[in-house]
């Protein structure tokens, strides 16, 4: 049985278990990942010059060449990963077993596992309408349960306010960080996405996980339907067949805009269908990250 399909993951009650399952899947896909192993690695030899540390002299090289060479090492800097979760009402939409918020929490949990596993810091920012709460990034193993517990208790409510989340993040993030945003980006404010992407300007690495439900992507409705907003009291009675083509055009336009904005701001963009395998999503993301690092 495939444990990583959305139906299987939905049977796992807690985010903790779901995140763990996804991480296992990811790790089995990263056999010789550059992320595993030493934190300090040899990079190259350099001819000794006054001022270089004597302890880094390579005596074996001196024996061979009768010259002083200094070993240079590449230190992996400690990464601060901040996962921004949009918990607005629209994130609670589901046409399959997992809602967009469930998928966001699972992905965030799995990434927290991976970060902490390689001694990087993992933090959490939760955007709930006009309220933004955060859990500072820590690299300790004991911090992981806090992150997972915070994810566990999330419920969709309120309106999407990515502008506020962007402003708060600007205050929270004091060092260069990898900011991973999990949202459906359904914010009617025109500048919301731009503000989020401006975080990149501050030397932060930004990645957007754009979560969409399959029904939102394909609009598979036939009968006369009363569509209700999940964030406010808007509603509309309409024959879905009559507007399907127009809806899909609008959505495609929106997706193109988002993609173009992300590309312009040099931000990683990942469109996540909530019915796809989450380990595949993470592997795709990590592979892209690896490509960027090289």
């Amino acid at each position, binding site marked *: 049985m495939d444990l990583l399909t959305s139906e299987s993951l939905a049977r796992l009650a807690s985010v903790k278990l779901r995140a763990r399952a996804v991480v296992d899947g990811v790790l089995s896909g990263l056999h010789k990942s550059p992320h595993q192993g030493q934190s300090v690695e040899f990079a190259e030899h350099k001819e000794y010059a006054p001022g270089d540390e004597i302890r880094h002299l390579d005596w074996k090289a001196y024996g061979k060449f009768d010259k002083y060479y200094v070993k240079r090492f590449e230190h992996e800097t400690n990464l601060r990963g901040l996962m921004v979760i949009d918990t607005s009402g*629209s994130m609670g939409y589901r046409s399959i077993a997992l809602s967009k918020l469930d998928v966001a929490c699972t992905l965030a949990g799995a990434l927290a596992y991976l970060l902490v596993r390689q001694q990087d810091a993992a933090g959490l920012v939760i955007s709930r309408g006009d309220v933004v709460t955060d859990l500072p990034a820590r690299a300790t193993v004991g911090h992981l349960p806090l992150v997972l517990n915070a994810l566990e208790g999330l419920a969709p409510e309120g309106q999407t306010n990515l502008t506020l989340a962007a402003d708060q993040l600007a205050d929270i993030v004091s060092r260069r960080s990898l900011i991973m945003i999990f949202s459906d980006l359904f914010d009617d404010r025109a500048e919301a996405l731009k503000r989020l992407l401006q975080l990149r300007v501050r030397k932060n690495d930004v990645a957007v996980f754009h979560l969409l439900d399959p029904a939102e992507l394909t609009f598979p409705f036939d009968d006369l*339907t009363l569509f*209700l*907003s999940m964030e406010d009291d*808007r*509603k509309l009675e309409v024959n879905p067949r009559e*507007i399907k083509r127009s809806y899909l*055009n609008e959505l495609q336009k929106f997706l193109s805009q988002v993609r173009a904005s992300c590309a312009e701001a040099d931000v990683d963009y990942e469109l996540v269908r909530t019915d796809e395998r989450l380990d595949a999503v993470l592997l795709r993301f990590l592979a892209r990250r690896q490509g960027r690092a090289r």
Partner: protein
Amino acid sequence: MTFAHPWMLLGAFAALIPLLVHLFDRRRPRPHPFGAISFVLRSERRTASRLRLKRLLLYTLRTLILLVLPIALARPQLVRDAQAAIASRGTAATAILLDASMSMQYADEQRLFERGREQARQALADLLPDEPATLLLCDADARPPSVPDFNRGRLRAAIDTARPTYGVSDMSRCMNLAARALEESPIIGKRLVVISDLAAHAFRLDLPPPTIQGPKGERIRPEVLIRDAANGATSLPNRAVTDLRVEPSLLGGPRAFQFTFTVRNLSDEPVKDLEASLKIGDQVVAKGFLDIPAHGGARKTLLHTFATGGEYSGEVSITSDHLPADDRRSFVVHLPKQLQALVVNGEPSPIRYRDEAFFVDAALSAAGSPVQEVIRDTESAFREAFEHYDLIFLLNVSAPAPEVARRLVEFVQRGGGLLISMGDRVDPEAYNKLLGAILPRGLRMVKTAVSSEPGDLDSSAARIKEVAFDHVLFLPFNGKAREGLVGARFFKYMLLEPAQSAPGEQASSQVLATFDDGAPALAFARRGQGRVLLYTSTVDRDWTDLPLRTSFLPLIQRFAAFLCGSLEERDEAKARVGASFVLSAPTSQAISWVRSPSGLRVPTQKRDDGSALVGPISEPGVHQAFNTAGDEIPELSFAAVLEPSESDLTRLRPEELSTYFGEETMRASAAEAQRQRVPFWTWLIVGAALAFFLEGVLLRK
């Protein structure tokens, strides 16, 4: 505007359905919380005006469909000027004449008769409620129609069950019959609706147009409406097999026949390489091609040799055209069957060519001969049982003994065939005495036309001068073949008594050939059920050189076949569709009934002499005769042929019709035709279909 089925208009209330659905549709939409509602709202705003227009169009189209369909089914009819004028002249008793002749079977897109039937229905529907009507199907056997009445259902049923015939119609006669029926109606107005293909041969324009006796005894002309079943077509091109002669072919062998047929091209375009085929039974046995000029004809002969004797049926056909009925012509060929003949040799000779029976033997034993012969001298022949034979040849036989003569008479009376040829041994007086009862004529004396001096032979020898070439015996002797018969020289021959003076002779005898001095060369008589041929010269070279001629062999073979009744004696051309003819029964079997090609019984009246009056024949093709026991009589099968005039579809010109019926009639008829061509309800159906299509397109958008 009037409606053929006004109750159908009730269906127009269905047009309210879309409105009612709109007003009372209480379908509850399914509530559905949706994350991307912003896009839904934006899409709805963007498409709202278009959707509103689409809904309005859909509503309109659906209403239109539901409104138009019942109206179309109610068959609305627009009353145009001409019809209004007719109506303004008041009500009229109406006789509808529907041409049911063979030419109405002509089919272009639709059979003319079907179109005529629709026009008849339309004419019936056009009648005002107080107009009585009657219907006359105009075929070869048209009878006076009933007095006009108001029983529309009966007329409609008669129109529905009407079928085109293979006969000829005389529209002038039919119009007069209809006019007589209209006279019976008390309504003053009289109207004739003539539905026809307007083939010129059906109208006798030399006769005065139909008139009706008015209330004061004066003759008045009824109103005539002409409905053209051919929809105003300028011409109806047709090709037809108009004639067929089936004759034995002397050149082809004993059972070879030649089928000579004429094909007429009744169109404005010449025809090239028209395929013609000869079919025996179901098998095509010969094919040919014809080139026929426009409005011309061409003749073709196809040959076929039959393997055995018997009755054969078949047809000659050409490639089918718009009128297939006249593209074929059926025939029946009766070939002589194998016959048993007793040849009594009156003067045998050890020298073969001097033997009396030498040439007869050669003729009867030739390949293809219908006769199986036994040659005996007089003594042994007369000891034979005659009933074992179909015919007896008495060749230069001295008079038989009285007992033998009695048996010979009995043999003939029971149906046997007897050929008597002369010679030096024949004693006229003894023959007259003993065989007088069966001789066609009494024998008188031998006449010597020329001495046997070689120099006198050509100049003084008698020759056959007159021959009944139309008799079945001599049918093959046409053209050069006659030379072999009339060129023969006769040195001696037996003179016969005049027909009236022969004592005890029966009245019916026939001279089929005479010499140049008028003396009979060949006499024939039916005696009882048998036949007797009396040939007044010899069958060897003693009295004539006929045995040396090419005509001798077929002549003897045909004598044999004829004596046994195996030769066709009926004229096939007499069996024409639409006519009656006498079917003679040459055998002892009486005709009980006759079956047509489609299996129907043809009216048959038995006559005292065993023959039957068959007809009127209703369809072309091979007909079969049956006896009282229900067994087929194959030799009485016959083929009925179509009247060629019906194949000529040359149409009356409008000016001819105008001259005959009057300008006013033609104008009204033209307006009728115009109205007929595009019925209003058809356009309504087309409109509804278009609306339905558009609705489908809109729904897909």
